[in-house]
C-alpha cells in the first residue's frame, strides 16, 4: 500500500465537497462521510502493515534538502485509526447538528483537509513536513472556529490563531535550527543529547509548540473562548480530540525519540511542574464554570496536565499511561462535547441554570454523557481510571518528595473533576425539570422533549462504548497500541514495577460493582410498593416555595470564590489576568504607543530624521 493514499483520500474528499453547494441537502455530508470511511478502512489496513519509509524528493536550496519523508510505524499506525474514527464520527454528528442550522460551505471540506494535514503530521519523518502540516492544522482550526456565529466567534478564532501562531513560530525556529546545527531534519536520523544551550533551546521551543496545541497552562487560554463560540462539532473535533492527539504526539515524539536527556535533568522537572500547574489551575477554573461548554473546555486543559505528568515522569509506566490517557481523553472529551451539543440542539441553551431534568427526555444522551463524565473523573471501571492509575503508579514509583507532591495534586485534581462533573450531570440531566421559557415557536417546545437524532446519537454511543471497552479490557489497547511505541514488553521488563502489576485488574472490581448495582436494583424493586410520604419542609419558620426556590447546580461550589487565597485566584483568573494573550498584548501596546507618539505627521520632523540619518551614516562610514 502506498502511504500517500492516506493523504489523497481526505484531500480528494475535500476537493469534491469544496465544489458542491450546500443547497442540495446532505450531499456534502454523505461524500465527507464516505471519504472518512474509506480513510478509516485504509488506516485499519495500514495497522497490519510492516513499518515503512517513503521519500519523495522535491527540491534543494543550497545544503538544505526539502524532500518529503514519511514513516509508518506503531505510533502513527494507531493514531491514524483514531484520526479516521474521530473524523468519521464528527462528520456523522455534524450531519445531524447542522441539519437545521446554517454552516459555511467550507465546513466539510475543511474537516477533510484537517484530516489530511493531521495524517501528514502523524506520518512525517521530517520536521519540515511536520512543521508545514502543523501550521496547516492551526490555520484550519482558525477558519473552523471563525465559522461560529457572530463577532465572538471571530474574536475567539483570532485568539486561538494568535496563541497557536506564536508557538508555531517557535516550532519554525526550532526546525530551522536543526539542519544548521545537526545537518538534518529527518526525525529518525536525529539523536540529540540535551546538554548544550542550543539543544535545550530547540527542545523547549518544540515543547512549547506541542503543549500549546494540547492546551497546557500557560498557553491554554485559546481553548475556552474557542469552545464556547466555535461550531460545536468542530470544537469536539479539533481542540477536544485531534489537537490533543497531535500535541501529545509531537511531545512524546521529541521527548522519547529525538532528544536524549541526561539523568535528572531539570527538563523533566519543568514538564512535571507545568503538568501539575495545569491540573491545579485548570480544575479550579473548571469547577467554577456555569456554562457547559466552558466547563468542558477547562476540563480539556486539566486533563493535559495528567498526560504531561505521566510522560514527564520518565517512567515507562507513566509514559504508557500518559499516551493512553491522551487517547482516552480524546474519546471521552469528544463524547462529552457531543452530548452537550445534543442538549444545546434540543434546548437552545448551555447555561446550567436554565437546564435540568433532561434524563427522562434524552436518555441516550444522558447515558453517554454519564459514562464519559465518570471516565473523565477517573471512576473505575471506565477507561479514564486505567490511564490515571498508571500515571499514579509511576508517580508512586518515583519515590521522591516531589513526585509525591505531584501525586497529591493529581488526586486532588481528579476529585475536583468528579465534583465538577457531578454538577454538570445534576444540573443538566437530573434535578428539577426546568420549564423552558415560554417560546412562541411550538417546534422548540416539541423538540425539547425528544432525544437527539440518530446521526448524533451514534457517535455518542460509539464513544461511550469505547470508554467502557477501553476500561474493562484495557490490556488490549495497551498491548496493541501503546506498548510497541515505547518498546515496552508486557512481561519481563526490568523496571521495579512491570506493566502487569501497574495495570489495574478490573475483573474483580467490575464484578463487585455489578453485584452492588444489582443489589441496589433489587432493594429499589422490592421497596417500590411502599407509599412515599411527603413532608412539608421546615426551614426556621420561613416559607419555602418549591416552585421558585431551586437548587442551582451552578451555585454548588460558589463557596470557593469566597475563600481567601483560592477565591482571589479564581476571580482574577476569570477576568483573564493570567491570560498570556492579554498580558502580551498590553505589553505590545506600550511599544506601539511610543512609536505612534514619535510619528506626529509634521513634515519638518520627518525631514530632520532624514538629515540626521544621513549625518549618522556619513559619520559611521567616513570617521569610523
Amino acid at each position, binding site marked *: 500500500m502506498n502511504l500517500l493514499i492516506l493523504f489523497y483520500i481526505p484531500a480528494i474528499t475535500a476537493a469534491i465537497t469544496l465544489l458542491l453547494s450546500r443547497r442540495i441537502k446532505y450531499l456534502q455530508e454523505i461524500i465527507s462521510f464516505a471519504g472518512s470511511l474509506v480513510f478509516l478502512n485504509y488506516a485499519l489496513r495500514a495497522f497490519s502493515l510492516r513499518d515503512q519509509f517513503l521519500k519523495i524528493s522535491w527540491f534543494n536550496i543550497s545544503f538544505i534538502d526539502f524532500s518529503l519523508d514519511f514513516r509508518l510505524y506503531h505510533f502513527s499506525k494507531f493514531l491514524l485509526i483514531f484520526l479516521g474514527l474521530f473524523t468519521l464520527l464528527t462528520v456523522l454528528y455534524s450531519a445531524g447538528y447542522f441539519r437545521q442550522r446554517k454552516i459555511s460551505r467550507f465546513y466539510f471540506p475543511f474537516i477533510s483537509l484537517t484530516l489530511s494535514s493531521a495524517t501528514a503530521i502523524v506520518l512525517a519523518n521530517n520536521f519540515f513536513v511536520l512543521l508545514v502540516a502543523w501550521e496547516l492544522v492551526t490555520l484550519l482550526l482558525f477558519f473552523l472556529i471563525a465559522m461560529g456565529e457572530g*463577532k465572538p466567534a*471571530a474574536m475567539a478564532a483570532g485568539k486561538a490563531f494568535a496563541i497557536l501562531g506564536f508557538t508555531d513560530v517557535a516550532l519554525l*525556529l526550532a526546525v530551522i535550527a536543526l*539542519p*544548521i546545527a545537526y545537518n538534518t531534519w529527518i526525525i529518525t536520523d536525529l539523536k540529540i543529547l540535551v546538554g548544550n544551550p542550543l539543544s535545550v533551546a530547540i527542545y523547549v521551543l518544540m515543547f512549547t509548540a506541542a503543549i500549546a496545541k494540547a492546551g497546557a497552562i500557560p498557553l491554554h487560554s485559546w481553548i475556552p473562548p474557542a469552545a464556547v463560540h466555535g461550531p460545536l462539532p468542530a470544537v469536539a473535533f479539533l481542540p477536544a480530540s485531534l489537537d490533543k492527539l497531535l500535541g501529545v504526539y509531537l511531545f512524546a515524539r521529541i521527548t522519547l525519540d529525538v532528544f536524549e536527556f541526561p539523568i535528572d535533568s531539570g527538563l523533566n522537572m519543568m514538564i512535571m511542574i507545568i503538568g501539575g500547574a495545569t491540573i491545579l489551575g485548570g480544575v479550579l477554573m473548571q469547577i467554577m464554570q456555569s456554562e457547559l461548554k466552558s466547563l468542558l473546555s477547562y476540563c480539556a486543559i486539566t486533563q493535559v496536565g495528567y498526560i504531561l505528568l505521566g510522560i514527564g515522569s520518565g517512567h515507562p509506566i507513566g509514559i504508557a499511561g500518559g499516551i493512553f490517557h491522551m487517547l482516552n481523553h480524546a474519546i471521552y472529551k469528544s463524547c462529552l462535547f457531543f452530548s452537550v451539543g445534543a442538549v444545546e440542539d434540543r434546548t437552545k441553551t448551555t447555561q446550567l441554570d436554565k437546564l435540568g431534568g433532561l434524563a427522562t427526555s434524552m436518555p441516550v444522551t444522558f447515558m453517554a454523557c454519564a459514562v464519559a463524565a465518570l471516565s473523565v473523573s477517573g471512576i473505575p471501571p471506565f477507561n479514564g481510571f486505567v490511564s490515571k492509575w498508571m500515571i499514579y503508579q509511576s508517580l508512586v514509583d518515583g519515590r521522591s518528595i516531589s513526585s509525591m507532591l505531584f501525586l497529591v495534586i493529581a488526586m486532588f485534581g481528579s476529585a475536583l473533576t468528579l465534583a465538577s462533573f457531578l454538577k454538570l450531570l445534576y444540573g443538566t440531566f437530573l434535578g428539577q425539570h426546568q420549564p423552558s421559557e415560554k417560546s412562541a415557536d411550538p417546534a422548540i417546545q416539541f423538540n425539547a422533549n425528544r432525544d437527539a437524532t440518530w446521526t448524533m446519537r451514534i457517535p455518542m454511543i460509539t464513544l461511550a462504548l469505547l470508554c467502557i471497552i477501553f476500561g474493562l479490557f484495557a490490556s488490549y489497547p495497551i498491548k496493541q497500541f501503546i506498548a510497541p511505541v515505547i518498546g515496552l514488553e508486557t512481561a519481563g521488563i526490568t523496571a521495579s514495577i512491570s506493566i502487569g502489576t501497574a495495570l489495574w485488574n478490573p475483573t474483580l472490581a467490575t464484578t463487585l460493582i455489578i453485584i452492588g448495582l444489582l443489589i441496589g436494583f433489587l432493594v429499589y424493586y422490592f421497596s417500590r410498593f411502599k407509599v412515599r410520604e411527603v413532608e412539608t419542609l421546615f426551614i426556621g419558620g420561613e416559607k419555602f416555595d418549591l416552585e421558585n426556590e431551586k437548587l442551582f447546580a451552578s451555585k454548588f461550589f460558589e463557596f470557593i470564590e469566597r475563600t481567601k487565597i483560592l477565591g482571589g485566584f479564581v476571580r482574577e483568573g476569570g477576568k483573564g489576568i493570567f491570560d498570556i494573550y492579554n498580558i502580551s498584548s498590553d505589553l505590545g501596546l506600550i511599544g506601539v504607543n511610543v512609536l505612534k507618539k514619535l510619528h506626529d505627521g509634521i513634515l519638518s520632523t*520627518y525631514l530632520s530624521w532624514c538629515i540626521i540619518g544621513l549625518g549618522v551614516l556619513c559619520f559611521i*562610514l567616513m570617521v569610523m
Partner: protein
Amino acid sequence: MQNWLPLFVMAPLGMAFINLILTKFLKNISAYLALITVFFLCGLSFRFIGHEPFHYAIGSWLPPLGITLVWDPLSQLLILIVSIITLAVTLFAIPYMQQYTAQSKFYSLYLLMIAGMNGVILTGDFFNLFVFLEIASIASYALVAFGVEAEELEASFKYLVLGGVSSTIILLGIALLYSATGTLNMADMAITLHQGVSKNLLFFIFALFLMGFGLKSAMVPFHAWLPDAHPSAPAPISAMLSGLIIKALGIYCVARIFFMVLGIVPVIQTILMVLGGLSMVVGVFLAVGQWDFKRLLAYHSISQMGYVMVGIGLATPLGLLGAIFHLLNHAVFKSLLFLCSGAFEYTTGTRQLKQLGGLLKKMPWTGASCSVAALSISGVPPFNGFWSKLIIILALFQAQYYFLAVVTVIVSFMTLISFIKVQKYALFGTLPKRLESIREVPVLMISGMFILALLCIGIGLFYPFYGQLILESARDLLINASHYTLYAIP
C-alpha cells in the same frame, strides 16, 4: 529579438502621450489603451524570459558614450514582477477608476510610472537611471494627490518634499561618481572604480546612496513619507506604490548599484542589515496599532522591505535568494492586499476595520483573495510568504546571526497578529446593518485580484519549476557581480 528591448520603455512612454491626444477624439478609450499596453508588456516580458544577458545601444551610440539598456537575470526578475502586477492592477483599475474624473490623465500618469520603472530597471547608464527615477517619482507624486482631497494633497506634498530631497541626494552621488570616474556608463564605472578610487569619496557616495535609495525604499528612519502617501492614493496606485515603486526605485537600485557598480563591502552590509532590522521592527509595531486598513498595509510595507534589506545585507547565497524571493512575493501579496482594501472601500465606503465585518459572506471572491494575501504576508504555509521568510531565517541562522533570526521570527509573528486582526474584523463576524445591501465588486476587479491570489498560492508550491530560471539566476548574478562588466559593455 534584442531590438525589442527598448519597447519596454518606449511603449508605455509613447502611449502615455498618445492616450492624451486620442481621448480628445474618443472618450473612454484611455483605459483600454492602458490595458493593451500592459498586455503587450506582459507578453514581451514572457518572450524575454531566459534570454542571454546582453546590452542594447540606443541609437547605435556605442557605450560608454551612448546610453545602453541591459537585459540580465536581475532585470528579468524585476521586469517580470512589474509586468504581471501591472496587468492585474490595470484590470482592477478599469472599474475602480470609474469613481474618479479625469481618467485619461490617470492612465497617462500610470503609464508614465510604468515607463519610469522599466527604464530604471533596464538602463545601463547612471544619469539615465536618475531621469527615469524622476519620471516614476513625479508621476507617483501626482497620482498620490489624484483624489485632490485635503488629506491626499498633504500626503502628496510630504512625499514630494521628502522624495525631492532623496532625488537631490542621489543626483549629488551620481555627480560625485561622474567626477571621480569620468563616465556615466555603469559597467564602465565599475571597471574604473575597480582600478582604485579614494576610499573617503567612495564611502561618502555610499552614505549618499544609502540615504537616497533608503528613502525610496522606505527604510527606517527615512520611512516617514510612506504611511501617508501609500494609503492616500487610489487603491490601484497604492498597489503599484507598495508593490512595485519601492522595489524598483529602492531595493533594485541598491542591489544593482551597491553590488555591481560600487562593489559591496562588509560595513555596508552591516548597515543594510541594521537598517533592515530596524525597519522590520518599527514597521510592524506601528502596523499592529492601526485600524485604518490601508495605513496598516503601508506600515507593513516598511516592515517587509526590512526583510528584503536584511537578506541583501547578508549577501550569502541563501540570504540573497531569500531577499529576491521575498521581493517577488511581497510584490504579489501586498498589491493584492491593497487591491482588496480598494474593493472593500469601493463597496462599503470605508477603510476603518472597526466599521467592517462579515464581508466574507457578501463578497466571497474578494474576501477569499484577501484571506489568501493576509496569510501569505503572515508567513503561513503553503502560501508564498512562508517560503521566502523561511529561507531568510535559514540564511540568518546559517550566517550565525541568531539574534536577528529571532527578531525576524518575532516580527513574522507580529505580522500574523495584525493580519488576524484584519481577518477577524473585516472578513469574519457579523455584517453591520449599514452594509446589508452591498454586493460583490465587478468581475474585472475580481479577475485582477484572482490572478494575484493564484500567484500567492502557486509561487511557493511551484518553486522547483521556475526557481532556477527566474530567482536563482538573479541570485547568481548578484554573487558574481563582476560578471556585469562582461556583457554590459562591449
